[in-house]
């Protein structure tokens, strides 16, 4: 029996290659994901493994918030200089270096910030005194307070050179000029760790910039042979976090491994989608192989082969194909993983030396590939075993199987899924709404897939109408509708991929519509001053600009917004605090209205909230709350006004006098209303002039602003599309496979058509129409399901602020056009085969 299987396989090479390709691609992506995760994990942790090399102990502030805040110059919780003496006094401590580190801004020769997509890190060179961490390249170390050393990356990014003067400032410190006196490299002769640029100052200069000039440190590095417990005790048990160098390195590495595993999960996700899509292809191929071998199988059965032998023969074929394809996929996956790791290291971590590692888990890809192939072949195998021996004697007329069972099953499953979604959306699942909705979506997905054969009947006829203007088109349409199960399963593969991208695109366009509506319809401003946030770099500008803007011709009013969003608390709960120099004007620009009280000339101890916030916190006009600002200042504030509920102005508004306690006491955005009749572009140009010396922000009009705010989302959609292209490729292979097999099955019919006068071109067109209809069917179904998916997510997130539902029309039309092109391409090989058909061979009987 095995020999018969092998012989049979050898005679169907082309088909096996197509089936294998699907398995190869799926396995390849799964393996590549594993390799990428582990390689990046190793490379990144390798990068920081020596971050504290030679350092025997590290003392840092306890609260995680303080760690984050150090960049914004909050002096609370940092380590006072006196602590250095306490530490040095501990037994065994030879030396202790206080480090001041934080995020700063440097203005490049072009007037813009250096390093747009990664922050500039400032630190005091002295913290490096007892270790050889940074490799000095040239020049001298910073000795005077206006001297700095910079990383090679800084020079490369900015275009500065040794001897140049650089303007540097931070959120808490005004601009100051420094002279570049030296250049250093990071460990391993790297110019940067992840794209960031670095500047080393003297300790006083660093403190001026990053700790508001106070003599405190963000970390202390210890050297010697001591016990961390003793250091902890000396500092007042638990006051600070005391770690060994190794512990600190491990903690850093852990943080980084999150990045690599997130990337790995994304690739794994797409790999699994690819595997899922290939399941359809494999099932289809084996079903057709079995159908074609029906006579052969019947002869075997007639000769006495048992049912189990037939099942085994089909499964043996699956095992052989699955094994070969999976091994191939594994090999290619290792290559892909290596390439991806190199690319990620090069582009995301600017030249990270990749330590290629292949984890044992990669072998799972093999298990997945072989397992999926065999599982997919089970149904066709069992079906094959049901071929009665008498089929050998009959003409191979296979009436299509009735669709009733599969349709009923599909309807039930779809209903269950939809019910779950409905219950979840109407908050009837007792706290498990999200889980309910997600599993509902998954179940409905499976249900709809089961329903595709029955849906294919009307939909294929309808789509076929578009093609029926020629007789060959009509024949193609009839062929596409001939075997609904096969058409459906072929189209399903495409459907899944299209549904996923359409779903994501729908969510994104809903997000965009929500943003655009909030900004365009409600915002009474014409120009917006803002910067695009990149990384941890929060763009701000000097508050004096507001007055300069107000003074411009054609400017009616200016609303400004200051935000304190890290570490601010109200009655012990983390909240985001806002403020404005002129809340009256700002409210007007936003279109917000006051419900109770007054917002004019807010007293220092007053706070303004919206109705919703008041209700949620059970507060009323005149009540007092305890507000803590980022700098640690805590003060009672009285509610002096309540605003009408309104998305754009909801939250906590404090008096401008409190702005000095904000982490960043600078405005982040300004909204400008232009006088009626004024030339918008002229005003915009004037505003630009005012902002000439503000490297972080620019001015945009409303349309540009919406575009700017949502451009990141477009990138997301594009990235997803590229990754899902893999699933689409597999789907295309599926279409090709189905068509090739259909052409083979219909050899005699094609022969007849050619004999009675169908030209080669007509035969070609007939197959192409069939292909396009299958692809369009998959795309239409996918778009439908994707829109449903997007709608469900939008409904689920409506309470979170995703209030608008919008369809990505442009993309939908694109997907339809692409599916037509895919249909044309997929038909190439099968159509050529049909056109080249030897008429005589096709009609001659056996």
């Amino acid at each position, binding site marked *: 029996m095995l020999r018969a299987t092998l012989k049979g396989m050898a005679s169907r090479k082309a088909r096996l290659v197509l089936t294998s390709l699907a398995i190869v691609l799926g396995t390849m992506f799964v393996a590549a994901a594993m390799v990428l995760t582990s390689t990046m994990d190793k490379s990144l942790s390798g990068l920081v493994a020596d971050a504290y090399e030679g350092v025997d102990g590290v003392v840092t502030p306890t609260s995680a918030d303080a760690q984050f805040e150090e960049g914004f110059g909050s002096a609370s919780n940092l380590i006072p200089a006196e602590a250095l003496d306490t530490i040095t006094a501990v037994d065994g401590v030879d030396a202790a270096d206080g480090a001041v580190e934080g995020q700063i801004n440097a203005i490049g020769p072009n007037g813009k910030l250096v390093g747009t997509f990664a922050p500039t890190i400032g630190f005091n060179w002295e913290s490096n005194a007892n270790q050889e961490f940074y490799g000095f390249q040239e020049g001298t170390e910073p000795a005077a307070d206006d001297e700095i050393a910079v990383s090679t990356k800084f020079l490369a990014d900015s275009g500065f050179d040794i001897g140049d003067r650089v303007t540097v400032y931070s959120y808490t410190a005004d601009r100051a000029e420094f002279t570049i006196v030296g250049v250093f490299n990071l460990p391993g002769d790297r110019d940067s760790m992840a794209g960031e640029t670095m500047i080393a100052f003297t300790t006083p200069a660093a403190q001026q910039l990053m700790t508001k000039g106070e003599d405190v440190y963000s970390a202390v590095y210890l050297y010697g042979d001591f016990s961390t417990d003793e250091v902890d005790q000396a500092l007042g048990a638990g006051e600070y976090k005391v770690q060994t160098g190794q512990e600190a390195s491990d903690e850093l590495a852990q943080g980084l491994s999150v990045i690599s595993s997130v990337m790995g999960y994304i690739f794994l996700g797409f790999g699994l989608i690819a595997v899922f899509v290939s399941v359809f292809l494999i099932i289809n191929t084996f079903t057709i192989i079995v159908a074609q071998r029906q006579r052969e199988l019947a002869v075997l059965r007639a000769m006495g082969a048992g049912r189990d032998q037939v099942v085994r023969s089909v499964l043996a074929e699956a095992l052989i194909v699955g094994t070969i394809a999976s091994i191939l996929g594994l090999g290619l996956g290792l290559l892909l993983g290596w390439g991806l790791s190199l690319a990620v290291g090069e582009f995301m971590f600017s030249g990270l030396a990749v330590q290629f590692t292949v984890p044992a888990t990669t072998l799972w890809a093999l298990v997945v590939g072989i397992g999926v192939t065999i599982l997919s072949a089970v149904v066709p195998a069992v079906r094959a075993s049901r071929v009665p021996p008498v089929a050998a004697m009959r003409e191979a007329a296979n009436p299509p199987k009735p669709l009733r069972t599969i349709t009923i099953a599909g309807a039930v499953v779809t209903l269950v899924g939809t019910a779950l979604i409905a219950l979840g959306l109407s908050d009837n699942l007792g706290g498990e709404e999200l889980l309910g909705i997600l599993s509902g979506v998954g179940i409905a997905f499976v249900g709809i897939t089961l329903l595709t054969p029955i849906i294919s009947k009307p939909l294929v006829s309808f789509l076929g109408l578009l093609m029926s203007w*020629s007789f060959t088109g009509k024949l193609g349409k009839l062929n596409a509708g001939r075997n609904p199960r096969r058409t459906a399963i072929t189209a399903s593969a495409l459907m899944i991929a299209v549904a996923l991208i359409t779903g994501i695109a729908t969510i994104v366009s809903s997000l965009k519509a929500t943003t655009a509506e909030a900004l365009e319809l409600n915002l009474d401003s014409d120009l917006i001053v803002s910067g695009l946030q990149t990384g941890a770099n929060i763009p701000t500008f000097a508050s004096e600009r507001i007055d300069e803007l107000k003074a411009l011709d054609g400017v009616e009013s200016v609303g400004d917004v200051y935000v304190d969003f890290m570490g601010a608390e109200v009655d012990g709960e983390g909240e985001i605090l806002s403020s404005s120099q002129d809340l009256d004007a700002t409210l007007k620009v936003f279109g917000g209205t006051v419900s109770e009280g007054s917002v004019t000339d807010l007293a220092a101890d007053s706070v303004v909230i919206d109705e919703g916030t008041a209700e949620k916190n059970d507060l009323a006009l005149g009540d007092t709350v305890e507000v803590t600002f980022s700098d640690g200042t805590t003060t009672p504030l009285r509610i002096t006004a309540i605003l009408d509920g309104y998305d754009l102005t909801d939250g906590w508004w404090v008096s401008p006098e409190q702005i000095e306690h904000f982490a960043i006491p600078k405005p982040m955005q300004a909204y400008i209303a232009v006088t009626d009749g004024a030339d918008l572009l002229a005003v915009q140009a004037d505003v630009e002039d005012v902002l000439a010396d503000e490297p972080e922000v620019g001015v945009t009009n409303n349309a540009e602003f919406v575009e700017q705010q949502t451009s990141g989302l477009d990138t997301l959609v594009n990235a997803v599309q590229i990754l899902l292209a893999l699933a689409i490729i597999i789907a295309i292979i599926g279409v090709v496979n189905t068509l090739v097999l259909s052409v083979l099955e219909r050899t*005699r*019919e094609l022969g007849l058509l050619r004999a*009675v*006068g*169908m030209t*080669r071109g007509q035969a070609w067109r007939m197959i192409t129409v069939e292909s396009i209809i299958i692809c369009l069917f998959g795309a239409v179904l996918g778009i439908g399901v994707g829109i449903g998916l997007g709608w469900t997510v939008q409904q689920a997130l409506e309470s979170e602020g995703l209030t608008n539902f919008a369809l990505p029309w442009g993309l939908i039309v694109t997907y339809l056009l692409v599916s037509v092109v895919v249909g044309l391409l997929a038909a190439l090989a099968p159509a050529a085969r049909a056109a080249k058909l030897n008429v*005589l061979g096709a009609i001659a009987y056996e």
Partner: protein
Amino acid sequence: MPLANPPAPTGVLTRTRAAVTATGLWRAYGSGEAQVVALRDVSVQFTAGAFTAIMGPSGSGKSTLMHCLAGLDTTDRGTVNIGETVLTGLGDKALTRLRRDKIGFIFQQFNLLPTLTAEENILLPASIAGARTDPDWLRRVIDTLDLRDRLSHKPTELSGGQQQRVACARALATRPEVVFADEPTGNLDTRAGTEVLRFLRRSVDDFGQTIVMVTHDPSAAAYADRVVFLADGQIVDELRRPTADSVIDKMRGFEQRAPIAERTAR
């Protein structure tokens, strides 16, 4: 069970125009040791408006001859004419068009497209050509074949005999120069076979259709005006106004000679 003798053909012999002419046809398959010569120097004419049967034992080359005459197969040497058209040397496109416009086909099996109704199958060659069929003519053909109430049926809903009658209607619908029938009764029971043969006979008598039929059944050949006998790739004899018995007699003669011919061929 032998079929009843067909009625004697009338009036056809007075017309002598040749619908199909083959001159000096050679056709060989394979090469070297394995070469099989299927046709060796075959010259034959098929009179317009006549029903001709080609007979011969298996492997005699009768199917090859028909394929060459119908432009389905190429010849190594010699020429084939259909009406005024010389087939030899025509490209695929011209041959396809010729088959579509001037030739009708009836095959033994796989004769109809399962996706189309009987009527659509009848109109198939015209539809492919994008041409219209003469409705009066079509009505006549359909009525003669008694298919009127079967037109909207799919092939799977028709009996074998009905299917073959649909195929006959299709072959005649475009009023081709010649209809080639390849064992048209091979897959049918005697009764259905008789119906089809009677129709072919009638289409010659009533419509003046030219028909060339390949068969190995003497009683089917008896419906023809003339039988051409092929053996070992050559035309060895012919018989006018055949009867089943006279055909059987002839055949018996060839079968006795065949082994000798085979021996000399090697």
